[in-house]
C-alpha cells in the first residue's frame, strides 16, 4: 500500500522535477541540458510581457472572482425562499453553466459578442457627437471577466447554497425577535456561519480564472494572460524561460500555502492551549 502511494507521488512529481531541472539549463533549447545557470529566472523576471501577462491574469482573476462571489452569495441566500417554477429554472441554468464545456463557452461567447459588437458599434458611433471619437466595444479584459465570472459564479452558488442549507435557522429567528434589522442579522449571524463557504468559493473562482486557458484563448481579444503567454511561447519554441516561470509560480503557491498552514496551526494551538 505504501509503495503504491510512493509510486503515485512519483508519477505526480517526476514531470514537475523535469520542469524544475530544465529551468536551470544554461542552453537555449529546453530539451538539451547544457550546464547550470539561473539566467532564465532573470530573463523571465525582466521580460515585460511575462510581467504584464501575470498582471492581467491576476487582475482578471481577482475581479471575476470578487464579482462572482458577491453575485453568487446573494443568489444562494435568496434561493432559500424560492420554490416552484422559478427555482427549477434557476437550477437548470446552474446545471447547464457547470456542464457546458469551457471550449463551448469560449467559442459561443466569442461569436455572440463579436456579432453583438458589430451591431452596436455603428449605432454608438452614429449617436456620438464626433463619430471618430466614439468608443468602440471590443473583446478584452471586460469580456474575459464576464465569461470567467459566469462559470465561477455558478460554482459559488452551489458551494454557498450547501452551507446555507445546513445553517442553524433558530439563531436568525432569535436575532429577528430581538429586534435586529435584516441587514444586522445578516452581518452578525448569517455571514459568520457561511463565511468558510464564501472563502472556499472565492479561492476556487480565483484559481480557475488564473489557470484557465481555453476560454481566455477565445474571449481575451488582444489581452495576454499568463496561460496564453505560455501557450504562445511553447509554439515559438520552448526556452527554459517557460520552465523558470512554471517553477516560480509553483514555488510561490507553495510558499503561500506553508504560511497559511502555519498561521492556521498557531491559531489552533492558541485556541486549544
Amino acid at each position: 500500500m505504501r509503495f503504491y502511494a510512493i509510486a503515485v507521488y512519483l508519477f505526480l512529481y517526476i514531470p514537475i522535477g523535469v520542469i524544475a531541472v530544465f529551468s536551470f539549463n544554461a542552453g537555449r533549447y529546453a530539451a538539451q541540458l547544457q550546464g547550470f545557470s539561473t539566467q532564465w529566472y532573470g530573463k523571465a523576471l525582466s521580460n515585460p510581457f511575462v510581467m504584464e501577462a501575470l498582471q492581467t491574469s491576476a487582475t482578471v482573476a481577482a475581479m471575476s472572482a470578487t464579482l462572482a462571489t458577491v453575485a453568487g452569495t446573494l443568489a444562494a441566500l435568496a434561493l432559500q425562499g424560492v420554490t416552484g417554477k422559478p427555482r427549477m429554472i434557476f437550477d437548470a441554468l446552474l446545471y447547464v453553466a457547470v456542464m457546458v464545456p469551457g471550449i463551448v463557452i469560449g467559442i459561443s461567447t466569442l461569436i455572440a459578442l463579436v456579432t453583438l459588437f458589430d451591431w452596436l458599434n455603428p449605432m454608438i458611433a452614429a449617436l456620438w457627437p464626433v463619430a471618430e471619437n466614439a468608443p468602440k466595444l471590443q473583446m478584452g479584459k471586460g469580456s474575459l471577466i464576464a465569461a470567467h465570472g459566469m462559470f465561477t459564479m455558478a460554482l459559488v452558488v452551489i458551494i454557498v447554497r450547501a452551507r446555507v442549507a445546513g445553517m442553524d435557522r433558530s439563531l436568525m429567528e432569535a436575532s429577528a425577535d430581538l429586534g435586529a434589522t435584516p441587514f444586522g442579522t445578516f452581518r452578525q449571524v448569517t455571514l459568520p456561519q457561511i463565511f468558510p463557504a464564501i472563502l472556499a468559493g472565492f479561492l476556487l473562482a480565483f484559481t480557475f480564472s488564473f489557470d484557465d486557458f481555453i476560454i481566455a484563448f477565445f474571449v481575451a481579444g488582444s489581452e495576454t494572460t499568463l496561460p496564453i503567454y505560455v501557450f504562445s511561447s511553447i509554439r515559438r519554441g520552448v526556452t527554459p524561460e517557460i520552465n523558470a516561470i512554471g517553477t516560480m509560480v509553483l514555488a510561490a503557491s507553495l510558499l503561500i500555502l506553508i504560511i497559511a498552514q502555519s498561521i492556521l496551526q498557531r491559531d489552533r494551538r492558541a485556541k486549544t492551549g
Partner: protein
Amino acid sequence: MTNRNDFISREKFMAELYRYKKGSVTRRYFLGVTGLGAATAVLGSAMPGLQSAAWAQANIGDRVVLATWPNYHDPANFEAFTAATGAAVDVNVFGSNEEMLAKLQAGGSGWDVFVPTNYTITTYVGEDLIEPLDLSKIANYDAASYNQRFAGPGTVDGTVYAVPKNWGTTGFAVNTAQLGSNPKPTTWKEFWDMTMADFSGRTMVHDYQLTTIGNALKYFGYSFNSVDTAELAEAEKLLIDAKPHLFAINSDYQPSMRSGDAWMTICWTGDGKQMNRDMPEIEYVLGKEGGELWSDFYAIPKGAPHMDAAYALINFLLDPAVNAKESLFHGYPTADARVDALLPAEVLNDPILYPAQELLDALEFGAAVTLTDPNRAELMARFKSA
C-alpha cells in the same frame, strides 16, 4: 551623420535612454543630454537599421506585437531594436495563413505587424483587414532594388499593402542517416510512398492546408493549387491512407527532427537550412514534380494598436544590413539586391536557398482561391480529425 563632435558613449546614451523610458528624466532632458544628432550618430554606427532619425523624433511606445512563422527571425535583431527604441517585440508564432486570417476576422488580434504570404494579400484587402502602407515611413524600402517577381503581390490595384520579407520554397527534409536501403527520395511520390513504408511513424506534415494538400496533389501530378473536386478527392484518399503512418501534423517540425523522433518532414527553405547547418545528415529536397514557391511580406493589420512602432520595426528589419543578418540566421533568401550584395558567396551559391533552375521552374506560387476555398478547408479538417 557627420556631426561627431558631441559624441557621447553608447553606454551613457543607453543609460539616459533607460532613465527616460522609466520616466525619471523628462523628454527634453533626454534629448538635451544626448543630443539628437549624437544619438543618431551613435546608433547609426551601432544599429544600421536606425539610420533614419524618424524613430527618435517620435515616441513609438514601449512595445510592438509581431505575428509571424516559426524559426523566422534572429532574436538578436529584436534585442537590438528594443535596445535602440525602447519598444520590446512580442512575437506570436502561427503555423498557417488560415490561422492568421481567422484571428484577424474574429477582431481584436492586437497585432501591429504580421507576415502574410503572397497569395493571401488580395483576400485581406477584400476583407478590409489590412492597412495601406505609408512608404514614407519605411525609408529602407527601395522598390527598385527588389525582384518584382517576389515583391509584386504586395501591391493590389496600385496600392502597396505589404513589403517583401523573404521568399523561399516548400520541399521536404529527410534524415539521410535513417534511409537504410532506400535511395534518397527526390520526388513527392517517393515522399508519400516512403511515409507509408519504411518511414512509417517517422514523417511529419504541416498543419497547413496549402502545403499538405498541395504536396499530396503533387503525388498524382496535379497542380499544387487545384480546387478540382475529383483531384482533391484523390489527394484526400492519399492523406487519409498516410495518416496512420505520420509522426505528427505540425508546422513546427524542427524539435522533432532534431531529436530524431521524426525522420522526414514537409519543410520550408530556412528550416531546411537551419537543420542542415547543425546536422548535415538532414538534407533539403525539392520534389521533382514541383510544389510551392512563395514570398512572404511584412504588413500592418487594420486598427493596429501601435502603428508608429509597427512602421519602425518594419523599417528596421528591412535595413539591408539587418536583413542580411536575418538571412544568415534563418536561411531564407531575400528579394533585395542590396542584401545579396552583403551576403558571402557561399550563401549565394547555396543550393538550399537558391535551387537549380529546372527545380525552380516546376514550382508554383500559391493561388488566392486556395485560402478561401471551402472544400480545401474542410478536406484538411477531415484529414486531421480522421
